[in-house]
């Protein structure tokens, strides 16, 4: 066994062990049972869901952005958190794991949309239930296939403006009454209506679990997005650039150690994708050309890369926090405090 052969054998062993460990990690990973980043209980969301957003609270709280936000606001921690903790014993920073928002029509003008919020964490169910019941007024409860659903300001016709319910010990769902009830019934029957929405599942599968926040959706997510954006001349000028309709959008992002964003948009076809990519490239090039006035713009521009793959446009941005700080408009320097007026003789 010559030394060269020993090296090759050793390498094969290392690679094989690595592959075994990787396969092990792949199949034993808890997130495995679900669809992409979604936990199993979220599969009881209605089949008509057209967009889903998710926030990993644990990662968000641990991120430098939150630390910066918490440091800035230490003096007046949000009152809402204080009240919430006294009433329900729930400290969002400590107890919440994930928050998902899903719906079918996102803010269609004139209709409030049927958004649903699913909160996963550790709850003291009794305390939360009592807190909801002792809400001042308009809280009633009804039993939907064995699960208590709380309705807020239930009208005469039995329609509440909002509803909430515990899907299980660590999952709370809130939203319009219809969608909450639909979800609760599906959950009780053990169905997973979301699995029938193949398009959304495909998008969810491509989301990298473990990212701090993510968002997937088809046209409805974009329906309230502006159709045209102001031309390079600035908002006042006449010409504006038509945005090609996107069939679907997927955004994933991380906040540690820098703000990193990966946006993938599926355009109607390849030319549309190239057109959209060129628009984004135009903006990035524009930003870097104005670098001499604002050097941080150049850094921002070089942190963005745009690539097209068939009908998909992929924009990747890696923005360090110092760049973000330098981009924020500096608070107007408050006038130096005027010397106290000389006291009257």
């Amino acid at each position, binding site marked *: 066994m010559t*030394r060269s052969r020993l090296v*090759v054998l050793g390498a094969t062993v*290392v690679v094989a062990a690595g592959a075994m460990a990787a396969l092990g990690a*792949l199949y034993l*990973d808890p997130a495995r049972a679900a669809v992409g980043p979604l936990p199993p209980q979220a599969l009881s969301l209605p089949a008509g869901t057209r967009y889903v957003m998710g926030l990993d609270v644990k990662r968000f709280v641990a991120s430098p952005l939150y630390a910066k936000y918490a440091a800035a606001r230490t003096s007046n921690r949000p009152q809402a958190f204080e009240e919430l903790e006294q009433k329900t014993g729930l400290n969002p920073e400590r107890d919440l794991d994930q928050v998902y928002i899903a719906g079918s029509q996102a803010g269609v003008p004139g209709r409030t949309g049927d958004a649903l919020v699913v909160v996963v964490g550790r709850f003291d169910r009794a305390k939360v239930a009592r807190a909801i019941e002792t809400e001042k007024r308009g809280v009633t409860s009804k039993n939907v296939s064995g699960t208590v659903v709380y309705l807020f300001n239930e009208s005469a016709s039995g329609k509440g403006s909002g509803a909430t319910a515990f899907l299980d010990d660590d999952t709370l769902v809130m939203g319009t009454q219809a969608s909450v009830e639909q979800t609760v019934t599906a959950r009780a029957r053990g169905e997973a209506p979301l699995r029938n929405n193949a398009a959304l599942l495909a998008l969810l599968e491509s989301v*990298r679990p473990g990212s701090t926040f993510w968002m997937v959706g088809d046209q409805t997510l974009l329906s309230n997005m502006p159709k045209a954006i102001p031309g390079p001349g600035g908002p006042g000028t006449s010409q504006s650039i038509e945005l090609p309709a996107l069939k679907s959008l997927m955004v994933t992002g991380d906040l540690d150690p820098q703000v*990193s964003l990966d946006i993938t948009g599926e355009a109607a076809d390849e030319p549309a994708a190239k057109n959209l990519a060129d628009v984004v490239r135009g903006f990035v090039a524009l930003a870097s050309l104005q670098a001499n006035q604002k050097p941080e713009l150049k850094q921002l521009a070089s*942190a963005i*890369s745009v690539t097209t793959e068939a009908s998909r446009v992929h924009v990747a941005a890696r923005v360090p926090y110092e760049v973000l700080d330098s981009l924020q408009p500096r608070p107007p320097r408050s006038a130096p405090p005027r010397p106290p007026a000389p006291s009257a003789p």
Partner: protein
Amino acid sequence: MSAIPAVPAAAPADGRDVSRPVPFLRAARAVFDLSLEGMVWSRRSLLMILLLGLPAPLALVFRTFITRLPPRVGAFDFYGVVIAFYYVRNALPLAALFYATALIADEVEGKTITYLLTRPIQRVSVLAGKFAAYLATTLALALPAVVLTFFLLTTIRGWTGVGALVPDLFRDMGVVVLTLVTYGAFFTLMGVLLRRPVIPGLLFLFVWELLANAPGYLPRFTITAYLRSLIHHRPPDEGLAEIFAQVLPTALCLEAVGGMIVVFLAAAAWIFSNREYVLDQ
């Protein structure tokens, strides 16, 4: 003068079939064993061992000093930089140039080619055996480093979420193999074609392959554009070089890369089989 009785031309006692060359695989295996000896464990490989193995210690530095030296890039992004920028764009093609151009040139330069060409084996099995030794050597140096780098970087926050990144690891290992085979085939052809392949090789890698960032159809005339499109890491490059980066469809890339490997190796085998090696006295 009495005629000396000739040794009968019948098959020798050990039953070898002397009417045909040694079977291809057996000959290639013997050439592989002979070539591997001086390839991995030799002073000339020292630099390539460092170049191909370096990312693993770099990842270790990244991981251990992550608190004292806050990095600008996330762990998984750094892994992407290692695969896309360090390996596929630079280190692997350089290793291919280093080893593949020498497959035959070494033997000719050292005048030991005669021993190989006076054996009952087809010349194409000589090339196959040497190419396999090149692959074994470079993969033995690169793949463990890729695996170690991946685990060192993705398990910084524990093993949760690593499972989801595993498909990336296997895809990257596949692209590392494809990169070494493709560039290996190309530089084997160059090594057989040219007497001095080093400077043309370097000019190809670091001047011609810049076309990969050009707009339009130009990237399709390079090798790196296809290989880069096969990996899904998009590390933001300095400046606007990446601005025109386009990702070629995976199917096209696999076809192009496969075609290149077959064409380059077939051409190299044909040239090597028909060339006379007149070793100057």
